[in-house]
């Protein structure tokens, strides 16, 4: 058991300079967890080490097998690779093959009580990837497909990382080296330990226990489930679009139906999602309309995974670093993108600056702080979105402004862009927020709020299905 922060992180509150412990040929690195953060860290570390002629010994601890369907192979996530991350990975030379992408998507469809609108990419190009973190839902048919996490792990192994299929139960500092202890009580010494277990693991809890200064990330409960509808029906009903719902349900921040092969994944994010909130969501007509006959079918499998709402503190120490969800990630969106950014920043730090707390403080922590600061702006943005959820007149204005923009061949698409980046996580929350302060955005929104509500009042009293003119599809 870890007995204190200094034992675990080996770090005084303020790190001293000149402690850069550079890795050498043969240095041993333990990566705990083979989710996107752990595999991408290993991939980038070995790629960069190869570039400068450094030979490292990287071992990835992962007891889970991603070839399994259902919970045994799953990492409990909505499974969206954002537009910006798809482009970054392609630039890095990491191509997501067809067997990994369950569905390429080219648009978001926003559903509200006042109508629906589809927000498309300008080029009508599929740049958002819906993936399975494992190998599909429980009891699903075997597919010629590949788990996203499994694919990244394969890339890391092709670079030279070794997979150790063991569960890590503890990490301890001994004689200026890190010892990894597995559930079978085996102990192995490493020059660096990288914690990439996510936040739904026992190891992060173990590391927190007994340490006054280390705090694991703060969490909230979400809900994910899979509906089997068949790919023909999904193609016809959902198309290459992710369906997002802006509904007046307390504590619900984000809801999306994501088409994937024969299944549709439902993802509910908010403040401690519970059965009451799920029932309210399924009772909404905007949701029921998406399913055949307006009936919610039984789900194939479901889970209540937890997600970060605040980063771990601290996210590094001498010869120790936390990446991905274990350390710092984005609020609600683009967790895989945050795993990419933190894993690469940590790999660069290790190869070019060493494995001391000082090196991580100087070269890795700034990115984590940037993500955390952006999440604070994100909370403000989601608070505004909550107000919109409660205000019907605001929903009317947003629907009209977005629909007008989507009908235009040219010209700025300010509301579409804001919604796109908010749904997809393609831009930072700070960037999204600043764009909503642009005078042209504010003026256009005010005009649409007035005109849509004058028009909306005239159609007041009609049922949702009768308001054909408000139901915008493209």
């Amino acid at each position, binding site marked *: 058991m870890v007995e204190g922060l200094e034992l675990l992180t080996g770090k005084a509150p303020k790190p001293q300079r000149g402690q850069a412990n550079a890795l050498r040929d043969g240095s041993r690195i333990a990566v705990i967890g083979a989710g996107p953060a752990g595999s991408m860290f290993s991939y980038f570390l070995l790629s960069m080490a190869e570039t400068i002629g450094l030979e490292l010994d990287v071992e990835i601890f992962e007891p889970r097998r991603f070839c399994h369907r259902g919970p045994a192979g799953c990492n409990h996530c909505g499974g969206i690779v954002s537009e910006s991350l798809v482009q*970054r990975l392609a*630039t*890095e030379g990491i191509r997501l093959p*067809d067997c990994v*992408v369950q569905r390429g998507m080219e648009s978001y469809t926003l559903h509200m009580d006042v109508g629906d609108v589809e927000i498309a990419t300008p080029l009508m*190009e*599929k740049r958002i990837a819906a993936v399975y973190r494992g190998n599909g839902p429980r009891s699903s048919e075997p597919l010629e497909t590949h788990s996203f996490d499994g694919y990244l792990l394969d890339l890391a192994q092709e670079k030279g990382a070794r997979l150790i299929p063991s569960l890590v139960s503890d990490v301890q500092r001994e004689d200026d080296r890190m010892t990894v202890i597995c559930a079978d009580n085996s102990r192995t010494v490493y020059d660096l330990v990288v914690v990439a277990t996510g936040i739904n693991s026992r190891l992060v809890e173990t590391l927190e226990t007994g340490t006054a200064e280390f705090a694991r990330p703060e969490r909230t409960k979400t809900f994910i489930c899979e509906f089997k509808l068949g790919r023909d029906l999904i193609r016809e009903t959902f198309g290459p679009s992710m369906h997002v719902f802006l509904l007046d349900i307390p504590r619900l921040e984000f809801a999306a139906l994501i088409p994937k*092969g024969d299944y549709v994944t439902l993802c509910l994010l908010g403040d401690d999602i519970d059965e009451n909130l799920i029932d309210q969501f399924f009772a909404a007509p905007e949701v029921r309309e998406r399913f055949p006959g307006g009936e919610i079918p039984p789900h194939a499998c479901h889970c209540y995974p937890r997600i970060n709402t605040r980063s771990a503190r601290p996210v590094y120490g001498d010869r120790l670093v936390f990446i991905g969800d274990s350390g710092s990630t984005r609020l609600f969106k683009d967790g895989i993108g945050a795993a990419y950014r933190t894993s*690469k920043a940590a790999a660069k730090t290790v190869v070019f600056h060493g494995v001391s707390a000082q090196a991580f403080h100087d070269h890795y922590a700034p990115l984590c702080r940037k993500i955390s600061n952006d999440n604070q702006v994100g909370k403000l943005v989601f608070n505004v979105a909550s107000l919109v959820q409660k205000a019907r007149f605001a929903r009317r204005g947003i629907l009209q402004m977005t629909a007008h923009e989507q009908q235009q061949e040219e010209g700025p698409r300010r509301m579409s862009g804001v919604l796109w980046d908010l749904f997809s996580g393609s831009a930072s929350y700070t960037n999204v927020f600043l764009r909503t302060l642009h005078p042209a955005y504010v003026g256009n929104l005010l005009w649409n709020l007035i005109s849509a509500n004058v028009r909306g009042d005239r159609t007041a009293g009609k049922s949702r299905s009768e308001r054909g003119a408000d139901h915008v599809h493209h």
Partner: protein
Amino acid sequence: MQRIDNMAGLGKEYNVGEVIFRQGDAGNCMFVIQDGEVEVIAEANGREYPLRTLGPNDFFGEMALFEKEIRTATARATKPTRLLSIDKKNFLGGIHEDPSLAFRVVKTMSHRIRDLTDRLARYE
């Protein structure tokens, strides 16, 4: 075993012979080949001069990201092809945060300069 859904792939599809962009066109993105094959051709005096043939995971059109936004060659699909475009904004924004993102592009451009130099030397 079920077959992979034909909606699974990323990017935009191009037919055999379809021109992706033409020399002299304005451009603000590069392309990464997801599937298929693309030939890059220089056009001069009414003739076409093949520069290179590219396959999956190769990229082209990168010069538009760094300098004037005019395409210096024509790109055409020689097989059924799917391409992912990389925005100038996304690419340069990524490099601003992480300069090493440009490493692969710079390395490939270096190889291409070396290849063109060799071909020029042989020509002379």
